[in-house]
């Protein structure tokens, strides 16, 4: 017993510190931010941390509806011109005023960020010009019609032109041809709180790589005094230890507790909140003559036959997967985006019908089935590997013998993009909250020059759908665009070009005295965590 004396003292001391922590919040995140520069790496972990410090012209609420941010209001002047009214009286952390110059500077910096593994230029590339009519009125001209501009702007953090050393006059030019930028600080500089200056509710205090990001309250915040004196965000990348940290009281809140641990966490008196996310888990099938990993078909690719694809879809008992594998924290999917999000059509979930599936296989000329490889990541989506195994089980029941090839995300994505899997399981989160996102990336005909179908590793192609989608993407009128997107999706799903399985549900667990409005985009925004008493 003597050996335990030391830890006991430590435990008592830790407990003694607890009451003082009421003004503080600590959160266990499942991954680590790679930089404090909000324009360096377009990655959800970075975004959710930087949203506490930096803001954008628009914001998205928990349901991904676009609402005013640093811009109070905006209007589309014509198909390619937008006018934004900027909010007055907004201060940066260093006390300087927020003006149109900061916006122009911020957008200008995006293409100048070096070594970015995933650049924000995908949002600024389509901006032809920006001009400040006065300090708080800004016009943005796009190269092509972009109805989603206000959505895109949420991703572009506004930095302080002063803190970063810009000239008094900043003039916009596309693709890094701006003038008056001064010496642009690169990503590593943002570890310094004097550079990482935003307008957000919290100020960067310190960033200890691998260990924690600490932010403190910004008293001059335009939206009112933020709730917490200090917020600590700790990356705890393994699921078990993250749950243990919550149970042991090391952190007040965690994101993505493993589904199987949720009953235990609830039982210990913690609060669980969850929401349907914008992420669909789907099966994609390689639909070209030449396909690897298929056996028993004399070299033919059975997936070219829509009846075979339909059989695969019908053989999957989605309810069983959501109940047994996902513990009820998922919802069977009939579409590529959960309704009522933009462009969805309330299409019913495919009915589980193994009898009919077997008939379809026989009609297609494969009464004895065939063998096929199913690729899946094993550390990317919730219980991804388990779901893939369950799918393999179900396909085995209709005679398709499946070997599951699971690998870590890094290898999986490389191999998938090299078209190594005849069937693969993956997920798609529509960051824009709009149907055009999955359609454009997953099922539009793969075309490098147009930038269509970049993630279409099934090489599905339907010219009719492509055309409808292109039209929709250039339509400002929301109602018309909604209808076109619905029709485009119906074309794909009727053709079984891709098979939606389920929508992930995002879960947060926290101490009972906290509340958090669950977000569709799966972000954990510390600034949105509230004390339950209020």
């Amino acid at each position: 017993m003597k050996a335990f004396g030391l830890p006991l003292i430590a435990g008592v001391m830790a407990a003694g510190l607890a009451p003082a922590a009421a003004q503080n919040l600590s959160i266990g995140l499942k991954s680590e931010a790679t930089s404090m520069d909000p324009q360096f790496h377009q990655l959800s972990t970075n975004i959710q941390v930087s949203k506490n410090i930096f803001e954008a012209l628009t914001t998205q609420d928990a349901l991904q509806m676009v609402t005013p941010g640093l811009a109070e209001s905006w209007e589309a002047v014509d198909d390619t011109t937008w006018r934004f009214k900027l909010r007055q009286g907004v201060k940066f952390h260093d006390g300087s005023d927020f003006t149109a110059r900061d916006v122009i500077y911020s957008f200008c910096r995006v293409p100048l960020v070096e070594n970015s593994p995933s650049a924000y230029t995908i949002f600024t590339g389509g901006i032809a010009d920006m001009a400040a009519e006065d300090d708080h009125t800004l016009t943005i001209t796009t190269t092509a019609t972009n109805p989603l501009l206000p959505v895109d702007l949420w991703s572009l953090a506004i930095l302080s032109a002063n803190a970063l050393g810009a000239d008094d006059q900043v003039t916009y030019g596309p693709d890094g041809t701006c003038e008056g930028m001064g010496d642009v600080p690169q990503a590593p500089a943002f570890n310094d709180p004097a550079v990482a200056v935003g307008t957000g509710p919290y100020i960067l205090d310190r960033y200890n790589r691998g260990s924690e990001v600490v932010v403190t309250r910004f008293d001059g915040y335009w939206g009112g005094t933020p709730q917490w004196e200090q917020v600590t965000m700790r990356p705890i990348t393994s699921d078990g230890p993250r749950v243990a940290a919550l149970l042991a009281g090391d952190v007040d809140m965690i994101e993505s507790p493993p589904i199987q641990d949720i009953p235990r966490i609830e039982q210990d008196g913690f609060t669980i909140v969850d929401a349907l996310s914008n992420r669909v888990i789907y099966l994609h099938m390689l639909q070209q003559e030449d396909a690897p990993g298929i056996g028993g078909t004399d070299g033919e690719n059975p997936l070219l036959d829509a009846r075979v694809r339909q059989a695969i879809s019908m053989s999957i008992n989605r309810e069983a997967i959501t109940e047994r594998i996902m513990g009820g924290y998922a919802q069977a999917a009939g579409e590529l985006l959960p309704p009522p999000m933009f462009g969805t059509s309330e299409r019913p979930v495919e009915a589980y019908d193994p009898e009919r599936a077997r008939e379809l296989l026989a009609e297609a000329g494969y009464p004895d089935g065939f063998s096929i490889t199913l690729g899946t990541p094993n550390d990317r989506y919730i219980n991804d590997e388990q779901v893939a195994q369950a799918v393999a089980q179900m396909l085995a029941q209709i005679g398709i013998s499946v070997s599951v090839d699971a690998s870590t995300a890094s290898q999986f994505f490389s191999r998938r993009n090299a078209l190594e899997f005849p069937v693969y399981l993956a997920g798609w989160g529509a960051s824009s909250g709009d149907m055009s996102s999955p359609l454009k990336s997953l099922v539009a005909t793969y075309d490098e020059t147009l930038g269509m179908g970049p993630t279409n590793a099934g090489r599905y192609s339907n010219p009719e759908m492509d055309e409808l989608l292109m039209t929709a993407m250039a339509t400002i009128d929301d109602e018309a665009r909604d209808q076109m997107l619905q029709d485009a999706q119906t074309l794909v799903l009727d053709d079984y070009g891709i098979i939606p399985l389920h929508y992930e549900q995002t879960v947060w667990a926290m101490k009972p005295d906290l509340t958090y409005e669950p977000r569709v985009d799966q972000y954990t925004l510390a600034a949105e965590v509230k004390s339950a008493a209020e």
Partner: protein
Amino acid sequence: MIVYLVRRVGQSLLAVMAMAVLVFLGVFFIGNPVDVLVSPEASQAQIAATVERLGLDRPLYEQFGIFVWNALQGDLGTSFVYGRPALEIILDRLPATMELALVALALSVGIGIPLGVWAGLRPDSIAGRTIMGGSILGFSLPNFWQGMLLILVFAVLLGWLPAGGRGETTEFLGMQVSFLTWDGLSHLILPAINLALFKMSLIIRLARANTREVCMQDYVKFARAKGLSPRRVVLVHVLKNIMIPVVTIIGLELGSMVAFAIVTETVFAWPGMGKLLIDSINLLDRPVIVAYLMLTVLIIVGINLLVDVIYSLLDPRIRLSEMKG
């Protein structure tokens, strides 16, 4: 001696370079980091631009040439993920790992050798058998599972110690360390024990086996017959003679501890190099992986060199000049 050292260092540098080539090529073939790094919404052109920006569009030999050229100037490349020099990122994490490994090593040696010698001197006593039984259990448990059990018992059920993370750190000799504050120490205990248990078991077994062996040697029997006190026999003759294999093992194991910390760091969310490595492998951050391995290799080759020197000091029969080859 000096000739020997110079030769050894030269050979070690060759080894390090060979390692760099292997690792560089190895990681190159795992996959393309851009596939994981780039935003899923990016178009083909934007992906191609990213590939170009990271220099991954060049042929392998060219990438390798650039790597070697820069490495010769002390630059091991810029992390694809963090956009900062890979070496700098690793050195940031080095103190955490070294602290964990050294504390674990101190635990395993400080506890392992006395227990092992005890068990070796009295192999049939209850204590001796218990020690051996414990040591068997010690390396029978898979490290990650054992870590999880430690968390389950001491952090979740008893609530005595934190479940993970590094806690408060203070500056000591220019490095951030945990062991100087209660908070830091309480975070250090469980991971250090988790890392130490396996090595401790190994050292117990080794010390016991060697003690038994030494006790059978004529000079120990002689010493006993001469009427030397058992205490003196143990301290002078036994301990001195079991030191040779034990030093070898400690030397080898410190290096492997730095590496095995990968699992412990993952389970306990300890912000060290090992955790960084796993993250980097998952993201295929080649510069960081290569830099990590080269640094680890350097550390270990250095330790091996040190071991050889100590070895020769402990056993005059083995001369360094004979080992130089």
